[in-house]
């Protein structure tokens, strides 16, 4: 069935179709609409979820951890500082191996306070042990959320999953999307039947021990192995999802990459803009292409290296500033992935769009222009720059 929904409503609608046991709810722009829509489903009796309106995101994630450990399927949604407030507990959720599903509506982190989109919130949480899947548009936001539970709940994975979409650009823009029938969704996600849980009568369970150095490392390695196992599971679930939806997903999307010499690597809604730029350049005979990262954790390093192996120059576009003084987080991962190639493309990093700074097709074309120069001259120039950065004089 086709419908016109905002990204937030699409995710809330996915939640309704899944009818989770427990939702932890706390408002923060721009994810607030998700708990709002869901509250209406509760009020209208369309779901029978235990809807817990907590006093902070910290408590929201605490409720999710406890409820999931108790044997319930739990969901939540947040953005920006809300995700940052959950930070401590994101690690707890992952290390307790609790497959919670969280919709992260990406927004810049304070300070200064800013409500618009960039990826600094979820990039700050990239090493917490959560699977991270990013959407380009509303359809993907809906689809990714539906795929999260079958990925996270698999016994070999048992990790929480964060599905990310761009704040306002995706969360608030209304698009035509295809929705699955609720019966099909329920069948796809199945029943949640964990092996052990707090409320299991036959076998009491203790969760969250004090773990000494004689055990801690083994537990962390198990978690790391689970994240490795998630990669294959993400592809399996995508294949199952394609059967019921007709929509195909991978670890990333390659757009006009077959013979591309110049390529971009980026995440999220900017892919739409970049595709338009690639199409235009292709008309002009430029062999331009795009890799849109969908799965950032686990990072598809080997696969990405293969996808970029035959390019001559690549620009990684980071929508968050990592303050590493060595480029953004996507750049660090990409450059590391390329290291094992015998012949590597030239590589630059462009940090862009911080705090909702717009990026246009012309901006993307300029990046390709720079890549073309690099490919010809072999002169990279500054490796790590900021798109559209104004000088003091410009601002004055």
């Amino acid at each position, binding site marked *: 069935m086709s419908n016109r929904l905002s990204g937030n409503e699409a995710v809330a609608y996915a939640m309704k179709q899944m009818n989770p046991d427990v939702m932890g709810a706390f408002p923060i722009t721009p994810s607030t609409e998700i708990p709002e829509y869901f509250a209406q489903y509760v009020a209208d009796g369309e779901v*029978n979820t*235990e809807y817990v309106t907590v*006093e902070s995101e910290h408590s929201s994630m*605490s409720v999710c*951890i406890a409820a999931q450990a108790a044997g319930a399927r739990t969901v939540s949604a947040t953005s920006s500082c809300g995700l940052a407030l959950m930070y401590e507990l994101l690690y*707890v959720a992952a290390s307790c191996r609790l497959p919670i599903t969280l919709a992260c509506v990406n927004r810049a982190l304070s300070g200064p306070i800013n409500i618009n989109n960039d990826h600094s919130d979820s990039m700050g949480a990239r090493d917490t042990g959560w699977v991270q899947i990013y959407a380009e548009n509303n359809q993907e936001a809906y689809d990714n959320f539906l795929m999260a539970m079958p990925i996270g709940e698999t016994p070999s994975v048992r990790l929480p999953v964060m599905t990310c979409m761009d704040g306002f650009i995706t969360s608030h823009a209304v698009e035509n999307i295809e929705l699955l029938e609720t019966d099909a969704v329920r069948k796809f996600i199945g029943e949640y039947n964990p092996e052990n849980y707090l409320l299991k009568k036959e076998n009491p369970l203790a*969760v*969250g*021990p004090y773990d000494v150095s004689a055990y801690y490392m083994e537990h962390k390695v198990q978690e790391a192995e689970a994240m490795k196992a998630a990669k294959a599971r993400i592809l399996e679930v995508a294949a199952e999802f394609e059967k019921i939806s007709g929509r195909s997903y991978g670890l990333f999307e390659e757009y006009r990459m077959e013979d591309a010499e110049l390529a971009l690597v980026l995440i999220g809604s900017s892919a739409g803009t970049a595709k338009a730029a690639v199409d235009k350049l292709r008309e002009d005979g430029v062999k331009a292409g795009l890799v849109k990262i969908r799965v950032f954790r686990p990072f598809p390093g080997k696969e990405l290296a293969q996808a970029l192996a035959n390019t001559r120059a690549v620009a990684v576009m980071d929508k968050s500033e990592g303050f590493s003084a060595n480029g953004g987080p996507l750049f660090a991962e990409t450059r590391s992935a390329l290291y094992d190639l015998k012949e590597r493309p030239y590589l630059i990093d462009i940090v862009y769009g911080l705090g909702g700074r717009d990026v246009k097709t012309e901006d993307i074309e300029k990046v390709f222009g720079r890549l073309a120069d690099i490919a010809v001259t072999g002169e990279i120039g500054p490796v790590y720059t900021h798109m559209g950065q104004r000088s003091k004089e410009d601002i004055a």
Partner: protein
Amino acid sequence: MSKIYNLKREVEKPVRLTGGHRLCAGCGAGVVVSGVLRALDKEDRAVVVNATSCLEVSTFMYPYTAYMDSYIHSAFENSAATCSGVEAAYNALKRRGKVDGAVKFITFAGDGGTYDIGFQSLSGAMERGHDMVYVCYDNEAYMNTGIQRSSSTPRFAGTTTTPIGSVGQGKKQNKKDLTEILVAHNIPYVAQTAPIGNFKDLHTKAYNAIYTEGPCFLNVLSPCPRGWDYPMAKLAEITKLAVDTCVWPLFEVEEGVWHLSYTPKKKLPVEDFLRPQGRFRHMFQKGNEWMIKEAQQYVDQKWERLLEHTSA
């Protein structure tokens, strides 16, 4: 529970906190937790929730748990939210026919995890009205990290962050009155208790809290031999002195109505409670008489105020 409390019968129930945990000898926490869990009816299941604390690191060190019931610890400041999450899961799964039978939800946290860092989480959970019991075992400082002051630490107490020096005289501020703050949440049951005598007061209040529907709060004095600096054999004596000096009065507030649980036959001077504890040693030095005087005045004032509440 039978109407007449009988310690012998109660201690014959199967234990829910087993021996072999790593709490110090002379620590109140183990006595408090055993005492509270003993109030559960034998056939009822419970999920125990714990804030990061001495109790947590001593009773659930991987791969051993001291609890016979299910147990969850997640972090320091979120035990009330954690308990509300377990209770929410229970409601959801019960509604969907996935769990049956009564399950009780009991949280234990120290004063740091309750008065300070866990205060917001506690207040939120109480306001939302989850069917749960929150037990603060109050040992009046951050003992797990090495005796730092909390907002529960009484005035003049020496701690590692309120040391005694040529200028410093221990903690400058009075103890936060958390029990009264919980009363202001208008929850069905709030009580202040301590493990004294035959544990009847602790037992009865724990039973009331567990078997009263809705959010209930117990504040239980729980002396710490390391932080309070007393010989470990003196646990029971010190606890009793706290009650008999009215430093820690026993009372309960049921549906907003205050009841005094215990009136000392003879109200002892506060210095009887202070003297055996190293944390108050400086108060007995020459020239510091004013400290004892002011400590007494504060206790008297609080006691009078409590009597006004309970006789109203």
